[in-house]
């Protein structure tokens, strides 16, 4: 390499004997072998990835023949297909970068004009927006009539419920920036409220109520629970709050599981389904999933409608301020603890509504329906879709709930969540802001990366309270 030669020459001029030995050792260390060059290292990494992917997607092992899976994976055609893909990706990346980037630029330029025009029309004409929204809503409402019963079930039991949960969690984490890992606890509180007030628990309520009447009660209960949990803990920051909420979830979960006399414990609870009886009009939700679906769509649309107003209001701005710089927000007169509590309580009550809806749809639930994993999943949906953006969160929840169900047909059902995990990892590396990020969040991320404002401005607070 050039470094080595020039160094040796320089040394050779004054004292050849004594200097060359140590220098050549140093130069040897400095020498870059061909396999250490970035290009070949990348090829190696891609090949390793291909082998890993083959192992992941390949044969399942058995305890009878420990090496069966390995043998199958390394002898079949699959391995070669994966390796070929890896090499192809590498070759395109290494040797065709100019062409690909030019092609990308070209499509961008070509699509920029029409896209801009669409955007202009979109923002200029209110009727266009209303028209598109109506069309989307119509599709959401009537589209599912055409799909199989199985997918209708998935749509109600999982997608709709998780979308509602994600919208609620978005308020807490996306807008107020509070890491809440115990969000599902409020879901449980909602479900058990439904069970209690409809008289399904061993302890009887003063009056047994209709499921719909339980909704406001559940909202209120979760609001109070949120405030009780939040008031002492919202002074904590980031990681500490996450641990506290985790603990709160565990308390609620274990109480549900172990307080047999009150909650039926692990046996679970049977809850009545939704029904309306107004005298002149009565309707009962039965086994058909679609009526539940429409009911949930109403809840979701209502929640979106209410929360969107918050985002660009005094409250939404105050949340952003707190998220960005709590000290400055407080100095500007924003009562930080009150706003954080507000976010917590609003998120909790949304979760509570989802809990009532879930209990009244499923007709039966047990504590395992509120495992900590669900909290983490909802969090993943929010982050995947794009924190702080309602369209993002809707997409994130719907897509990530749908994906494992869809994969059921294609891969070993036991492996489905492995693919979900891989997707999340890739997503966080290449698009940490999420699929459809909110504008504010995107800017924050960009600024954090660019270090806008200098080291001073982004540094920690000027000390805390003594």
């Amino acid at each position: 390499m050039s470094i080595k030669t020039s160094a040796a020459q320089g040394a050779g001029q004054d004292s050849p004997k004594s200097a060359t030995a140590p220098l050549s050792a140093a130069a040897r260390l400095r020498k870059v072998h061909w396999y250490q060059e970035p290009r070949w290292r990348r090829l190696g990494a891609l090949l390793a990835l291909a082998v890993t992917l083959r192992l992941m997607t390949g044969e399942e092992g058995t305890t009878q023949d420990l090496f069966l899976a390995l043998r199958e994976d390394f002898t079949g055609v699959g391995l070669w297909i994966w390796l070929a893909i890896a090499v192809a990706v590498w070759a395109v990346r290494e040797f065709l970068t100019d062409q690909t980037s030019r092609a990308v630029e070209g499509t961008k330029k070509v699509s920029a004009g029409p896209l801009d025009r669409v955007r202009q029309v979109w923002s200029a004409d209110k009727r266009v927006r209303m028209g598109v929204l109506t069309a989307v809503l119509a599709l959401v409402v009537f589209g599912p009539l055409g799909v199989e019963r199985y997918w209708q079930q998935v749509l109600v039991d999982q997608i709709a419920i998780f979308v509602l949960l994600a919208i609620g969690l978005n308020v807490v984490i996306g807008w107020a920036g509070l890491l809440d890992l115990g969000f599902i606890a409020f879901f449980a509180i909602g479900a058990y409220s439904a069970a209690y007030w409809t008289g399904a628990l061993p302890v009887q309520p003063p009056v047994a109520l209709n499921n719909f009447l339980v909704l406001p009660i559940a909202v209120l209960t979760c609001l109070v629970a949120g405030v009780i949990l939040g008031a002492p803990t919202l002074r904590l920051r980031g990681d500490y709050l996450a641990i506290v909420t985790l603990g709160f979830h565990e308390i609620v979960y274990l109480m549900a599981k172990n307080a047999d006399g009150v909650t039926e414990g692990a046996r679970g609870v049977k809850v009545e389904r939704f029904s309306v009886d107004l005298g002149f009009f009565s309707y009962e939700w039965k086994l058909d999933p679609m009526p539940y679906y429409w009911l949930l769509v109403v809840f979701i649309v209502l929640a979106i409608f209410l929360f969107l107003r918050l985002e660009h209001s005094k409250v939404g701005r105050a949340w952003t301020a707190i998220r960005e710089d709590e000290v400055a927000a407080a100095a500007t007169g924003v009562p930080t603890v009150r706003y954080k509590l507000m976010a917590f309580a609003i998120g909790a009550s949304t979760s509570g509504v989802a809990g009532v809806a879930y209990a009244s749809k499923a007709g039966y639930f047990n504590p395992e329906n509120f495992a900590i994993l669900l909290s983490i999943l909802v969090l993943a949906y929010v982050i995947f879709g794009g924190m702080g953006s309602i369209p993002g969160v809707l997409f994130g929840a719907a897509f990530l709930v749908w994906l494992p169900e869809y994969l059921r047909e294609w891969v070993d059902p036991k492996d489905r969540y492995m693919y979900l995990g891989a997707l999340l990892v890739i997503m966080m590396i290449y698009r940490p802001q999420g699929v459809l990020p909110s504008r504010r969040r995107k800017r924050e991320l960009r600024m954090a990366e660019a270090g806008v404002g200098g080291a001073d401005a982004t540094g920690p607070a000027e000390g805390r309270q003594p």
Partner: protein
Amino acid sequence: MTTETVKKEQGPAGGSAGAGELVLETSGVTLRFGGLTSLDNVELRMRRGEVLAVIGPNGAGKTSLFNSLTGAYVPQEGRIVFRPREGGEHSLLGAKPHVVSQWGLARTFQNIRLFGALTALENVKIAAETRLKTGPVSIMLGLPNARKAERASDRRAHEVLSYVGLLEKMNELAGSLSYGDQRRLEIARALATDPEVLLLDEPAAGTNPTEKLELEELIRRINTELGVSVLLIEHDMRLVMSVADRVMVLNFGKKIAEGSPSQVQRDPAVIEAYLGAVAEEDEAAVAQAVAEGAGAQEGAGSGADTDTDTDTGADAGAPQWDTEEHK
């Protein structure tokens, strides 16, 4: 937070209420961090309507004093009293920062702390809104009072932004503004809370000479037109000498001098503190710097009348400076 409301009849709260009356008073304020005493028995008396500068070498405790006044730090000992215009008094010692802001003390930060991902307008709106009483429910339901409040805060934010001269940049992100504009935006954000006392922590740090002159003019206007008392931390002696009515000097957390700018400059303790801080620097240079400051101060005068004369034309400020200095 202790909010004793003492009946203290104060004449009709006019714009330029009693000049001699104290708006901010501290006594025996002592703040320690472990073994370090960052404020040592500090006495501060600030009259309503004055510009009081706090100077001192780095680490003297100036920012700590601001933090103690605004509730960010809680001194172990002492008394901090704020007397709002409408009478009564509030103890600021250990008060919550947002309550202090709502009482009427607004501040800026030495290290600019704007909400970088929000626009300039939004930054100011956040401050303007803290006085509006609309809850989340009325906002979610889109009730008329929520919409009215939104319009009110919008109007107020526009007003304040045009006052500091940032109106045309209101839709730019705070984080992408120039340094000088960021400093002004911070002042705008503080002003939007409708303060009686404005605490500026090194507002001229990192700004260029033109921006400094604009800043100087802005501080004067805030003081004279809006009747806001200004407590100013600043290293730029020319700025201090030209805008401050009085100067207080801190060193190692202790107040070592207080008085008119010219008095303070002649104070041996102050000269020594600066000499000590500059350490082994050319004594003559320091003496000259001090003398220069004195000259500038005389030019600017200390009365409000002369002040307004000096800044009748913002653009004419720069040449004026030079002539005064070389007089």
